[in-house]
């Protein structure tokens, strides 16, 4: 009994910590500079992306090294709309520079904001669904699947750089003015976008949590443990995996929307192999297979990146590589794993137990 009530208290404390974090984030606009706030907004958009990667990698055991593509597609769809709004009925600037005189047909519907935002999620999801169906149907999995996703990232970068008149080439899409008529540079719009990002992060988290708490979530873990056993328990692992991959890509697209509106640029350099690997590192560092870990990892690694690269611009990638090696060698369960394990190793107390005790003493008073 005592144990159960301790667990319950522990559970409540975890929610309280989460709630406190959300409140802190909500009040951040009051004490952060505009620059820092937009950075934080970017990290939170990345946290959404990390949740999607965690569903796939942490829970289902499929490592995608091409998530930059899905993220990038979401961002590009949004950026197309922003560019057209900035052009105000004319041709986006880079198209005129490249010698186009007419808006390409596939750009036209993106003048409607809701269409663009819809496509920002549907397009990456659809790409993942098709790719996943072809891959998983033919029982391609593990490292072969990973290599395929990496090739995907490479192909898209080459495609986007090569088709400069339509995609803005290496420079990508930037120089936006307004979103639904509001000036992106105004601080109230940026604050609103930041708050929307928090809202979507919370919603995505709750959605993933609900999903992983269902029987479906347990089946995903089962796929990671023994795909054959899942198949021979009467489930179709290919369909399950296509579903998760699609979902994960859709979430990446959502992150892309929130990213581009706050950062103001999307270019092929942000969707290639290197950023895709970085995304996986966030989850690895935070602790794969835990949703909170994915969020913490995304925010912390990116915060470290922006601080570290301000100080030593050239050394960041070495530092990141080292972080990944450390994560793999020393704390394979990431920061969340450290939380749960280290205290036990260095003495006979556990963090969770202590929190539970604290909670109990608070209740008594």
């Amino acid at each position: 009994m005592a144990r159960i009530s301790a667990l319950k208290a522990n559970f409540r404390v975890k929610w309280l910590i989460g709630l406190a974090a959300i409140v802190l984030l909500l009040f951040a606009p009051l004490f952060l500079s505009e620059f820092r706030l937009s950075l934080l907004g970017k990290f939170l958009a990345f946290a959404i992306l990390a949740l999607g990667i965690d569903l796939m990698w942490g829970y289902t055991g499929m490592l995608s090294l091409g998530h930059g593509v899905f993220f990038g597609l979401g961002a590009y769809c949004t950026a197309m709309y922003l560019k057209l709004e900035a052009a105000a009925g004319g041709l986006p600037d880079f198209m005129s520079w490249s010698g186009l005189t007419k808006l390409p047909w596939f750009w036209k519907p993106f003048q409607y904001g809701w269409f663009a935002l819809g496509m920002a999620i549907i397009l990456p999801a659809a790409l993942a669904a098709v790719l996943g169906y072809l891959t998983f149907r033919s029982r391609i999995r593990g490292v072969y699947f990973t290599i395929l996703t990496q090739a995907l990232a490479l192909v898209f970068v080459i495609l986007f750089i090569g088709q400069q008149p339509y995609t803005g080439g290496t420079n990508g899409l930037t120089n936006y003015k307004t979103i639904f008529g509001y000036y992106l540079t105004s601080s109230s719009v940026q604050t609103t976008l930041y708050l929307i990002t928090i809202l979507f992060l919370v919603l995505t988290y709750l959605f993933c949590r609900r999903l992983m708490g269902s029987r479906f979530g347990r089946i995903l873990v089962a796929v990671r443990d023994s795909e054959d056993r899942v198949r021979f328990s009467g489930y179709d692992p290919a369909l399950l995996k296509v579903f998760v991959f699609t979902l994960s890509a859709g979430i990446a697209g959502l992150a892309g929307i929130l990213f581009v509106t706050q950062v103001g640029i999307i270019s092929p350099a942000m969707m290639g192999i290197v950023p895709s690997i970085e995304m996986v590192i966030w989850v690895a560092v935070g602790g794969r297979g835990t949703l909170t870990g994915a969020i913490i990892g995304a925010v912390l690694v990116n915060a470290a990146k922006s601080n570290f690269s301000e100080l030593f611009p050239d050394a960041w990638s070495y530092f990141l590589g080292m972080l990944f090696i450390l994560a793999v060698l020393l704390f394979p369960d990431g920061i969340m794993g450290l939380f749960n394990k280290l205290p036990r190793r260095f003495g006979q107390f556990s963090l969770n137990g202590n929190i539970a005790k604290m909670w109990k003493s608070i209740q008594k008073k």
Partner: protein
Amino acid sequence: MAGTIIYLEGITVSFNGFKAINGLSLYVDYDELRFLIGPNGAGKTTLLDVICGRVKPAKGRVIFKEDIDIYEKQEHEIVRLGISRKFQTPAVFASLTVFENIELSLRQNRGVFASLFAKFTSEDEDIIYSHLETIGLDQKARVKAGSLAHGEKQWLEIGMLLAQDPELLLLDEPVAGMTKKETEKTGELFQAIAKSRSVLVVEHDMEFVRNFAKRVTVMNEGNILCEGTMERIQNDPKVIEAYLGRGWK
């Protein structure tokens, strides 16, 4: 129920020209406990693979019950028909609890969306616990399957098969790695299962086969050598040659 639950006729399986199974025919009856033995490389595991759809035969037909042709079905569809397979090395979901392992194996709607909105009923819980009692793991319901002992994993997988409520169970060396006592218990469990289901067991443990088999099929070099009671088989000169011949000649 009398009659034949599964017909295999003229099955040939070849891997890059090597015929693992060569024109084999086999019939298993309803509610029968059948043992399949034979020297290494005889094609026993491949035969189970053919029945559960993992390997598609180059020639021949597999008919389940009266008229269901296995050839056209995918593995998970075959499971839903009522054919369950246990692997040689126990395959369980290591990071899920014993209870959850059984939960996922229950006969239920196993589509993607059905599992998204699946409700867990107290009836489900009762069924799961009854399976856990059958395999003697009810005390370990909340333990992660990965931390079970080898023999317990074997049992858990058998329990998962039972939860699927199959009509035909295919068991590949189910008592490998079990102690003598565990083996004994498992044999009794199989006899109980075979009262209402058909069971096809591949086994190397001859003592186990001797104690529990009524009918034994001996395979050698991709075909059936002979079939009958253990006693008859032990005295069959062809069997003796297949088992001893290679080593002694």
